[in-house]
Every structure is written in C-alpha cells, then in structure tokens.
C-alpha cells in the first residue's frame, strides 16, 4: 500500500507538472486560438486550453495598448464576454471578465462575474478576493469583510485577504486580532510588507517604538519598493510620540515620496506639523493632496480651511469649510465652529458667525461650548451696539 500511495502521489505530482508546463508554454507562446497546436488526447483542444490560448492573444493586445496608455477596456470586456459565453464551464474566463469589468469601472458587472466564477469553482481564491474588493468599492464594508473571512476559511494561504481584514480590524481598534491575522499572513507570505506594515502601525499605536524600529528594519531587508512607505509612516508616528517632530516629518515625507497615492494619513501628519510651525503653505499643499486623493475626505477639507485662513485666504478658507459642510451634510461640529470663527473674526459677518456657532453648540459636546458662548455673547453685544447706532442715525 505504501508504494501504491507513493506512486499515485508521484503520478499526481507529475500530472501537475505536466499541466503546469503546458500552461507555461502556452503563456509564453501566444498561441492563436484557431491555430493552436495544443490538443487534448482526442486531438482537440480542451476548453481550458482554448481559453488559455485566447487569453494569450488578449494579453498581447492589452500589453500593446498599455504601452500607449489607451487600453480599450470596453472592447476587452466584449471579447471576454464572448469567451466566457463560449466556454461556460471555464471559471478562468469568467474571472477575467470580472477583472476587465473592474478595470472598466463596472463594479456591479464585475461583482456578478466574480460570483459566477465562484459558482463554477468555489475554491477560486482570486475571484473571492476580487469580489471582496468590488463589494468594498460599492461601499458595503461589512459584506466585504464577511467575504474575506470566508476566503480565509476556504484558503488558508490567502495572505492578501488576511491582511485586508487585518487592516480593517486595526482601523477599528481591534489591534490584537489585526496582529494575529498579519502574523498568519506572514507565515504564508513572509515577504509581504503589508503584514509588517499592520504590525508596525499596531506597535506605534501601542507606543512600542523599539518594536516599530525592529519591524521596519526587518521589513526593509525584504523590499526596497513603495511598500516601505507604510513602515516610514509608522516610524514617523513613533517620532511624533517621542516629540521628535523633525524626524517624524522626515519619515512622513519619505512615506509620501515612496507612495504618494496611498498614504493620506502621512499627508495629514505633514500638514499638522507644518501648521504647528506656521508653514501654512505646506499644510495647504498637503491637505489639498489629500482632497485630490480622496475628494470626500471631510477632515482634510476642514483642516485645509484652517490652513488657508492662516495664509490670510479667508474666502478660500470659507469655500473649503463649505465643501466640508456639504460632504458631511452639516453634521460635523468642527466645520461650524471654524466657520463661526472665520465669519466673526475675519469676514465680519456677525449673523453668519452666530448661526454657525449656534449650529456648533447644537452638535458639539456641552463641555466644549464655553468659549463659543462668550463669542455669541460678544456677537450679540456688537449686534446690539450696531442696532443702537443705526437707530440713533
């Protein structure tokens, strides 16, 4: 029995190798779908081989269009629709359709394609991962997390899913769970800097400067690319806690230099330090970057208003606050507070100032209201004086 088991294992491995080799060959050759030399035992290509062959052609097309920066995703989607309709049982065709639709921006279409892929092959990890991604894009964070949890259950090797879930849990303050997920992800994929990133952020959060430095040193041995940005950011947080703002600013700056598109918080931190040292211009620049990267970010709009006001750009500051108001549906008290101060102290619009400040009082905690009340009192007095002088005239 032993030898039979061994042999069957060998056969299994050999079969895998053979299949693998075939796949490699086809991927390298770009075989024309109609003239492919790949055939199954009966002398005809299997559906998988046909799809592989077609995907090779498509890869060439996408690669050449990418070179000129104009990929016609609509056309790619049409081709993949035809392919997945023709080979209904080949999960890879349906999966690729999902990827193409995602690139096109058709998230619901992509979601549908991924779900159909999973119906064909429930163990298709990439499809489940991408499904979680598109569900997130459509705003259903809870469902996305549920999908990620499913994926982790099905595929213990799904490192990316673990890390995505870990990041989500870290943001929610569930630090220990985030750490466990990251460590598990690193067990599968020890070079994944995202794992180190989550662990470093968690350590920074816990004020464990040495651990952050250790994680950073270990991670930097593994990767020299933009993924290091997160580790710079975490180090920056440590420096902030150590009150070494210069070093913090340096690390945050490194983070955004390495990965300008990802680290909103680093931009925030740069802006905050700049504000503290009256470098309003840099603060404005940083907040504006955040706003560009995430136009719905209310916090950045509010702080941008403060920085603009620092530069004496009152009208622009007002517009920033107003944008923040519209983004937050007027529910963020700080915007009303800042608008009130701006109207009161810089724009001399007492009524607007009073309205904003009263709105603030409505939304904010009572403990924060003392100063505001004094300003309202001042406004009322000034309004009374103005009223008096008007009536005298």
């Amino acid at each position: 029995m032993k030898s039979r088991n061994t042999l069957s294992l060998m056969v299994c491995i050999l079969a895998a190798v053979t299949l693998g080799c075939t796949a490699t060959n086809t991927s390298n050759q770009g075989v024309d779908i109609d003239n492919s030399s790949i055939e199954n035992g009966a002398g005809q290509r299997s559906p998988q081989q046909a799809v592989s062959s077609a995907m090779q052609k498509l890869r060439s097309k996408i690669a050449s269009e990418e070179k000129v920066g104009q990929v016609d995703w609509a056309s790619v989607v049409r081709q993949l629709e035809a392919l997945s309709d023709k080979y209904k049982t080949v999960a890879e065709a349906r999966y690729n359709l999902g990827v193409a639709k995602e690139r096109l921006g058709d998230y619901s279409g992509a979601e549908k394609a991924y779900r159909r892929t999973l119906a064909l092959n429930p163990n298709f990890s990439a499809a489940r991962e991408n499904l979680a991604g598109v569900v997130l894009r459509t705003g259903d964070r809870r469902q996305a997390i549920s999908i990620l949890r499913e994926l982790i259950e099905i595929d213990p090797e799904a490192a990316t899913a673990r890390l995505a879930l870990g990041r989500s849990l870290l943001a929610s303050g569930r630090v220990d769970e985030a750490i466990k997920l990251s460590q598990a992800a690193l067990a599968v994929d020890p070079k994944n800097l995202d794992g180190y990133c989550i662990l470093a952020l968690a350590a920074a959060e816990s004020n464990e400067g040495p651990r952050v430095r250790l994680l950073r040193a270990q991670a930097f041995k593994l990767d020299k690319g933009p993924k290091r940005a997160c580790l710079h950011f975490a180090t920056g947080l440590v420096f902030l806690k150590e009150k070494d703002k210069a070093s913090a600013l340096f690390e945050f700056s490194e983070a955004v230099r390495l990965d300008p598109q990802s680290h909103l918080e680093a931009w925030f931190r740069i802006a905050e330090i700049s504000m503290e040292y009256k470098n309003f211009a840099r603060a404005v620049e940083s907040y504006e970057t955040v706003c560009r990267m995430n136009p719905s970010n209310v916090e950045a709009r509010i702080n941008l208003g403060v920085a603009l006001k620092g530069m004496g750009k009152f009208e622009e500051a007002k517009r920033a606050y107003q944008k923040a108001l519209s983004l937050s549906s007027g529910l963020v008290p700080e915007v009303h507070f800042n608008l009130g101060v701006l109207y009161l102290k810089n724009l001399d619009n007492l009524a607007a100032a009073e309205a904003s400040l009263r709105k603030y009082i409505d939304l904010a905690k009572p403990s924060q209201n003392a100063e505001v009340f004094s300003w309202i009192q001042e406004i009322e007095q000034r309004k009374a004086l103005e009223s008096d002088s008007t009536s005298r005239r």
Partner: protein
Amino acid sequence: MIGISKHSSRSRRTLLASAFFLLSTTGFLTQTSTAQKPSGPVLQYEQFRRKVEFRVADAREKQIEGLEKLLRLGTELEEIPKLKFRLADLYFEKSQFFFFRSQETDDEIYSTESPDEKERLKAQKSVYEKEAKLWSRRATQIYEEIREKFPTYPRIPEVLFALGQNYWSRGKQDDAIDVYRDLIREYEDSPLVADAWLAFGEYYFARGALEQALKSYEIAASDKRSKAYGFALYKQAWCYYNLGDWEKSLKKFQATVFYSQMADELSGENKISLAREAEKDYVKTYAHVGNANRAKMVLMEIANVDDCTNEKCLKLMEKLGDEWRVQGKFEDSASTYRQIIALQPTSFRNAYFQSLLVDLASRRGDKSQVVEEVRTLTKLYEKLAVREKEGALGKERKKIRSALQEARRDAENNIRKLAQTWNRESVKTKQKETATQALDMYGEYLKLFPKAKLAYELRFQMADLFYRLERFGEAAEAYKITVLANPKGKHLVAAARDGIIAVEEHLRDLRLKKIKPTKQRQDIHPERIKLIEACDRYIQSVSGLDAKDIVKISFKAAKIYYQHGHFEQALRRFDRIVSEYPAAEESEFAANLVIDIHNIKEDWQSLYESASRYLKMPALLQGRNKLQEDLVKFGQHVKFKFITEEQEKLQARKESLRPIAEAYESFQKEFPTSENADKALFNASVVWDSLGDKARADQIRERLLTGYPDSPLRADVAFYAASSFEGQAKYSEAANQFSAFAMKYPKDKRARDALYNAAVFYAGIGEVQSAAKLRERYLKLFGKAKGGKSESADIYFSIAKDYERANRVRQAALHYEKFTKLFSTDDRYFDALWRQSVIYRKLRVLKKAEKAENQLLAAYTNRTRRKRKVPAQAADYASQIAVFRTNKDFAKYARQRLKPLNLKRPKKFQQSMQDKAEKRDRLIASYEKVVTQYKQATATIASLSKIASTWDNFVNTLLQVPCPRSLTEEQCTFFKEGLQEKMSNARESAYQAYVTCVTKSNELGVFTDESRNCVKALEDIDPVAYPKIEEQQVTFDAKKQPLVIEARPFIFSADSNKASSVSLEGGVRQ
C-alpha cells in the same frame, strides 16, 4: 573489460578456418585426378556407314503389310528374295524406329519427376526395347534366309552388308565381321567391299589392333570414289596418332581436311564435320610436336586462310593453346593465348584467354606471375563489365555477357582455388609472403566476382587471413561485409563475433588515448564507433545467441557510449541488459550505470522509475545486497530530490505547495529509515508553515524530534522554529527560541547569529535587560572572534541605545561612557559622548555632561585641526555644545538689570545700559559665530532664537527701567514713550530674528523647543502674519478611510485553478 579471450579465440578460429578450408578444397583435389580416356576420334563410324532410310511409320506399316500379304499369297520365285530383302529392310527400319523411341523414352524417364510417370515410361521403354529386338531379329532371320535360300540373288552383297550391319547394331561385331569377311571374299568387286574394310578397321581399332586397323583403313581408302574414303583417311590419322607417329598422323589429318574440302562424295553434313574434326584433331596432334612460334603459320594453312585474325584460325589457335595446356606445355599454351590476345586486342574473349593465362601461371607455380596475371584479368574483366554497363546494346551486350561468363567460368574457379591453396599453404609453411599473395588472390577474386556463389565463403576466409596477418582493421571490415552479405550465412556467428575481436585488436594497435568517462558529450573515435557497430551487428544478426555473449557484447558498446557521455544510447543498452538478463554478471554494473546516468542527467523521475523497477527484479538482486541497498538509497534519494525540484517549480509558478508538503510526509512514511527521512519531515514542516497550517507543522516537527533522536536536524528544527517566528514577526517567540538555540547548541555555527538575533528581538520588544544580557554574552563569546571588534562596537552602542530608549538613562549613560573608552576611533564615539551629555544634562549631572561635552569638543577640534575625517553628526553636536556654552552668557545677560535712571547722575544708568548693549552685541556675535562656524541646522535655529531673545531681553530690560523719581506722571509717560520709540530698531531686530528662526526652521526641517519659542513669540508680535490657531483642527480618522483591496490581475492560463500568489523564501533545506 569484458570480452572474448584473445588467445583462445584466435586458436579456435584458426582451427575452424583450417577445417573449413580443407573441406572446401576437397572438390579441387578430387577434380585434379581425372582418369585418362583412350584417344579416339570424335566422329563415329556410324555416321559414315550406310544409312537406314526412315519412313513415316504408317507408310512403313502399309508397306510391311503389303509385302507380307504378297509373300503369304505367294509370288514368283525370283520375286521372293527381292520382296523379302525389302521386308527385312523394313523390319530393320522398324527395329531402329523402336530403338530410337526407347532412347527417347529414356530421356523422358530422366526428365520426369513424377514416380508414377517414371514407372509408366519405364514400362513403355521396356516395350520399345522388346519391339526393337523383335524386329531386328526378324530382319536378321530374313537376311539369313535370303543368304541361305537364294544364294543366287543378285543383291546378295547388299544382303550380306545389311546382315553385317544388323549384327553390328545388335552388338554382334564378331558375327558382323564374319559376314563382312564373306562379302569381301566372295564379292570382291562389290562397291560395298570398301565399306566392309572400313568395318574391319573399326573392329580392329576398337580392340586396339592399330596395325590391322590401319591396314583395313588403308584398303578401305584404296578406292577414292568410295564414300568411306574420307573417314578411312581420317581413321588412318588416328591410327598413326595412337601409334605415336605424329608426323604421319598430321599428314593424314591434313589430307582428310583437304579431301573433305574438295570431295563431292561426302554428304554436306559429313563433309563439314569431317573437315572440322580433322582440323581439330590436326591441332591436337600438332600439339605433340609443334612449335608455338610457328603454330600460327601452320594453322593458317590448315584453315586455308591468309590471316589468323580469321575466326577459324583463331579457333584452331585456341584449340592448340588448350591442347598444350592439357598436355602441361604451359609455356607453349600461354604463348598461344597471348598470340590470340595480340591478334584481336579488343576481343571480348580476351578476358577468358587471360583467365587461362592465370591458370597456366598457377600451374607453373609462379605465384608472382599469377598475381600479375590476375591483376591483368581483373582490369580486363572490369573494363568489360563497365562496357556492358555503359551502354552495350543488343548483340554486343549479349556477346559481352557471354564473354564475361566464359571468362568467369574458369577464372572464378582458378582464382578461388589459388587463394585457398595459397592460404592453406601459408598456414602450413607459415610463409607470410604466401599469405599476402593469397590475400591478393582473395582480394582480386572478390573484386571480380563479388556476387559469386562462393564469394561469401571467400570473404570470410579472407577476413580470417587478414586477422592471421594481424591486419585487424581490414579483417574487421571483411568480417563486417561477411555478416552483412548473408544474414543466414553459415559464418554469420563467427564473422560477427570475430569482427568484434578484430576491431578490438585494431583499437589496441591504434593505441588510442584511454577514455576518461565524462559528463559532457564528446565525439567517439570512428574506430570505436566501428566496435559499437560490430557489437550491434552481433546482437542483431545472430539469433539464438548465448545470453552471456549478448550481455558481454551489449555491455561493451554501452560502455563506450557511457564513457563518451552519449547517455541516451548507453542508457538504452544498459537498461536492456538489466531488464533482459538480470542475473548476468554485467547486470549489476549496468544497473549502477543506469542510475548513474539518470543522476548525471538529473532526471530524477527516470532514476526513481528505474530504481523502483530494478528493485522488483529478484533475479537482479539475488546475492547483490550492495546493489539492493544502493537502489533503495538512490530511489529514496531521487524521490526526495524530485520533490524538492517540484517544490522549486511550484514556487516559481507561485502555486500552492500543499502537494509538496504531502509528498514530503509520504516520503518519510515510505522511507522511514532513509537518511533523508528527517529532512523530509523538516521540509514538510517548513512547507506546512508556509501554508499557514502551523498545527500540522508543529506536529511534524514533534515527529522529527521524537522519531529521529540522533538527527542533526534537531538543531535545524530549533533554528527553523526560531526563524519561522521571525518570519511571522513574532519577535518575542523568536527571541526565546533563538536564545534557547544559542544555549543548547553553542557549537553550532548558527549559534552566533541566534544569540545576536535573540538580543535584537528582545531589544525590539522592549526587553532591554534580556537583550543587554544576551549582548554581553555575545561579546564575551564572540567579541574577540574575527570581525568581532567592529561587531562589539555595534553591540556596545546598541546596548546603550536600548537602555536609553527604554528610559533606563543612567545605564544608558554608563554604556555610552564605556563605549567611548573602548572604541575611541569608532565614528559613533561622538554619538556616545553626545548621548552622555544629553542624558547627564537631563539628570542635571552637569559636571559629567560638561566632561562629555569637553571631550567631544576636544576630539572635534583636534580632528578638524588635523584635517582628519569627522563624522557628519560631530559638527552638529559640537555646534549645539557651542550654543549651550553661549547660552550661559545669555543667562547672565538676561539677568542683568539696568541701574535706575537718576537725572542728576545719569552716568550709572548710561554705563549699565552701555554694558548691557555691549554684552548684547557680543552675545549676538557669539551666536552668529556658531551659525557661521558650524553651519548646523539645529544650532542655527537655536542661535537665531537666542539672537531674537537677546534683542527681546534688551528691549524688555530697557522698558522695565522705572521713571526717574523726579518726573511727574505725565513726564514719566512721555519718558516711557520715548524709550519705546528708541527701542523700535531693537524690536525690529528681534522680530526679524524670530521670523528667520521660523522660516529656517521650516526650511531646514528643524522643530525644536527654540523654534517653537520663535513661533510663540511671533504669534504675540505679529498675530496677523503668525496667527494663533483658534480653529478646531480635525485629526485623521483611520476608521473612516476606505479599505482598498488591490484587484488580482488577469489569469492568462486556464489550466491552473489556483491563483494565489504565495511566495516562499528558500526556507527549505536539504
């Protein structure tokens, strides 16, 4: 080296060759002893005696019937003998008829193959014979009856002659002679008397009574008109011939020729044949007395021609040559043939004549001449063959073919015999020259008659002869051709086997360089290829071979391929040996070499398959424990190797390693005692770890530790476990494991790294004491090792830094201090001094702080003065110390108050103000000097801040001066306003310094307490430009940030249903 023994094979071959040779030449020997026949003419008497007239059978029967009827009915008396004579003649004719029929039937009996038909024909023949005798007897009876009863019958001589003839035909020559005697005696005038004498001549000639015969012939020839005349002459010549009277014989033959050319008496056919035979017999006789040089002239006369290129003359010449040859007059014969060739140099038949010359030369015993003649023959023959091939058409082609056939007829036989005889002779005499000449003969023979029936035989003999002459290369080639010539030939086995031996001998003679087995494919020497081919031929051509032979020969060829790196061919052969002859001695070697080849080719799959297959062959393994052990070892080794390679492939393709982990486990189960079993478990644990299945990985590691207590991998397991924790960023566990490893395996080469790592990880998780303890241990163990000094510096510094970070500042300061003592030349010397200064200042241990600062400044100054390399941060530290030092002056300056203004005695006030202003300027100059001297950001910002503060202090100090007592309140206000006004420049200087401080702070990225002071000052001084921030700023809310999962890309191959991007660092070790 496995092969057929050289000596034994040589002697055996010689015996075989000799035996064959003797057998093959037996025919030759018997043929040479042919019996002598009595000399006599080709022409027979019967041709020249009276002929029986044959009629058509029906007509004859009618005539017989009619005559018998007449005789029965009765007729006139004188008619009776006439009718009876006629009837007897018809009976005789009938008798002859049946005789001929019986002869014909005899031919038919000979031709038919059917036994029944044979029997039928034999019966038929018997009937014919009886009939022939019957009718002959009846004829005789009638002839005798006529002789007795009708003695007066006028045609009695004819009756007597017929009777004699009848007796002669029935073999009763004596009775015939009696009758002829009566005829001669009683009817001497009869024209039949000459014929009767001729019969007498024949009678005596046949009995060797030549004198009587000659006399009888002479009498028979006395009548020139007689039809018997020509033949009687001819027979006289023969009588003389037999009497040895050559001259008379020649004359009589010549006379016969002339007579036959002229005589009308002879019928056409007899005339020609008599002339022809007489000519021939003339030549035959001339051969006894003639001269080769004159022969041509004589024969021209006989042939009655002027030129011997005439066909008739040439034929006579040829006949003469033949006669001489037969008589052993080889010189004369050869001369004659040469004359013939010379007469017609382009004749197709010259090859034939040349073949006779070969024969003659051989009969003369001149071997060199024979060789020469044979060579000439070969040239002629080849020319003829070429001519035939190249377009001879029709008759010419026919003639050429006929000539070739003619030439071949004797030449083939002769040359073959010569080759064989000489070969045999050389065996006996051991004469190398003879052997060489025999070889020449063989060579020429095979050139001339490559397709001859015996060419195969000759080729083999020639191969043997080559071998005997130690011309092994040629022997090998001849053996090869022999094998290829006839796959069913009787010498196939010997030729195939001897071909191998010959190539081997040839290779020895060539003294080729010994082959060093190589992994790289290299060209095989052409002669070695011949050996391989010979081996292959042996295996392929010879059926029913002894297994031992097949194995030895196959192994020989396979080994050559193996040694030259031609592994495919070698593999096929070795594997065949093992598979088909597992018990053979060579199979053990072959099996090992098969495994070796797979190993060289790194074809693990095939290696595994071969090893597994061989292990299932009891015949191969019986009594070969080492082989069995090796196969098991190779099998498991290669399976292990195969798994590791598959692992690499899957890793490269980023595919799941689950099958690999399972394969390693399966390996350990299959080969639990293998040297790789523990490695398999180890690797399985690593892969399961990578797959995230820690529990299974741990379980396997446990199996390794308990199942393989002596495994060197126990240390690996421990190290791997620690590394695995490190990979998962579980630094606490990693530190514990590394530390434990370092303690447990202090002699392991990884112990040093383990200790180092453990310390780093402990420090990283804030367990500074543990870290420091391990680092100190490290320094103790490895501080003096190679590269230890530089590492020691790192470690000392790290210990101090760890303490400082853990806020154990006193311990930190102590370690920094220790560092400066131990590593004064290290770049971090300045850092260590600076950290001491900072720590001691915090702790208010100013003396120690200043000591460190002094040390730092001295070192900095010293190095810069000597223009030695100074680390970048040293200037920063020095500049900050310079600022500290200046700050002391600032403190004094700040404390300095102005003397109150006494309008009567204002000098004191003026002096104190002057003094403060001077100090202010000196102070500013000092700070400016720090800025310009060191050009360091932090010190610059600090200096700018202090410069601003210096101005500020000056202004504030002045403004704090109380009004002179003598002034009224209004005057006092005026005084204060005046001071304020006077201070505007100083204020501006302070403001500008603050602005520069803040601007530079942002520019240089230096945010210190000083820069913060500048900001605060400006918020007060210029709140418009530097407003206090009253607004509420909002912090970044990570929770609200979108969670983005980067989409996985397209999958271009639909053959893989797994799209995870697992990548593993090479943790798997073998």
